[in-house]
């Protein structure tokens, strides 16, 4: 921990984010249910529940798609960074919407007195050996289980308890869940509903997620120009005052290059606390401050101010022909590496 530490709790920005999120979900499901009921009025209770299943299922899938696009969008443009900060609440709400979808499926069987059929389909379906006809509810249950695991471990307590490394690896399972849920829809709704809209929506969502990830990776690779093995950052003025520009080393490591007046220094983009994105923070009272929990580091050597002991890896920086360049090889944590330029 360092001076000025304050854990991120509820704040105005988070409340607004959550308010918009909940309003969006209510609007989506309300519109879906209303349009569905108007176009094809449900005749009985199972039909109403069927409409609810589709509304919540579609909403959860759209939310999951949006969640997976936020990361690459934030890498492509800083405009999307505000979406990134509260993404965990987005994930928890997605799980809750998916849970209502799953509950509605059980409800659909229950109101018809056919719960045993649901159990048979899950446990002993002959469809397990087939592609078309594979029990889609098993795929859905797998996706829901992953969403539950991620929602349950989304709190900072679990990040600290599991360590950032294991926590991040666990949360990578979201990609697997997304793939399984695409197949849940492809083998379920897409087989029943012959309208062209379904494959366009499903394939389009999947393609959007995939293409954005490819575009973000491509952009980082393109941006990583080199001079004699040094990464080109840009003119000093291209680094916002008291903020950073993030460059990516050939190995994929992100480096945050900060400017504080006429001092320029490069630190690893990973905060020593919980691997927070340091380069998305700013310099407060002369110290680089992590946006997640306020951990602070000196720009010149990456050390937390006394009495704290955290140290970050630093990188050599140079000014060459009016352009700031950074050596992609990390120096031992706590090594002085920042430079002072003539004008700032």
């Amino acid at each position, binding site marked *: 921990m360092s001076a000025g530490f304050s854990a991120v709790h509820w704040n105005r920005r988070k409340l607004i984010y959550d308010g918009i999120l909940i309003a969006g979900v209510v609007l989506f499901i309300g519109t879906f249910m209303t349009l569905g009921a108007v176009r094809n009025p449900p005749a009985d209770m199972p039909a109403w529940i069927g409409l609810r299943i589709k509304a919540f299922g579609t909403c959860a899938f759209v939310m999951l798609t949006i969640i997976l696009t936020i990361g690459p969008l934030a890498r492509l443009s800083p405009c999307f960074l505000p979406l990134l900060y509260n993404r965990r609440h987005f994930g928890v709400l997605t799980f809750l919407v998916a849970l209502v979808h799953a509950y509605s499926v059980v409800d659909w069987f229950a109101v018809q007195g056919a719960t045993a059929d649901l159990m048979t389909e899950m446990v002993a379906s002959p469809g397990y050996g087939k592609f078309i006809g594979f029990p889609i509810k098993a795929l859905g249950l797998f996706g829901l289980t992953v969403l539950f695991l991620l929602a349950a471990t989304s709190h900072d307590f679990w990040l600290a308890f599991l360590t950032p*490394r294991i926590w991040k690896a666990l949360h990578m399972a979201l*990609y697997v869940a997304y793939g399984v849920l695409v197949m849940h829809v*492809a083998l379920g709704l897409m*087989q029943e509903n012959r309208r062209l809209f379904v494959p366009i929506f499903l394939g389009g969502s999947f393609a959007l997620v995939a293409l954005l990830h490819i575009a973000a990776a491509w952009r980082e690779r393109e941006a990583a120009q080199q001079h004699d093995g040094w990464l080109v950052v840009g003119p000093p003025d291209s680094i916002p005052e008291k903020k950073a520009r993030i460059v990516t080393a050939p190995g994929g*490591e992100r480096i945050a290059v900060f400017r504080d007046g006429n001092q320029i220094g490069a630190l690893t983009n990973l905060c020593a606390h919980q691997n927070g994105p340091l380069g998305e923070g700013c310099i407060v009272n002369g110290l680089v401050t992590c946006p997640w929990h306020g951990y602070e580091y000196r720009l010149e050597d990456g050390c937390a101010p006394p009495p704290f002991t955290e140290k970050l890896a630093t990188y050599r920086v140079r000014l060459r022909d009016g352009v700031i360049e950074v050596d992609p090889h990390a120096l031992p944590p706590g090594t002085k590496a920042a430079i002072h330029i003539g004008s700032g």
Partner: protein
Amino acid sequence: MTRGHRTFHRLLWPVLAVIVALGFTMALALRPPPEQPADSAKTRVNALMPEPK
């Protein structure tokens, strides 16, 4: 995200994306044909039948 995570991420995504894309394409290609209305089916059968002489 550490370098290890990033490497894993870079391997996982393309493999997963190819599997899902393949699965999606197969699911699309193997969709059962739409059920024809009884009347149109009858008309089609009639059209194939030779006219009685």
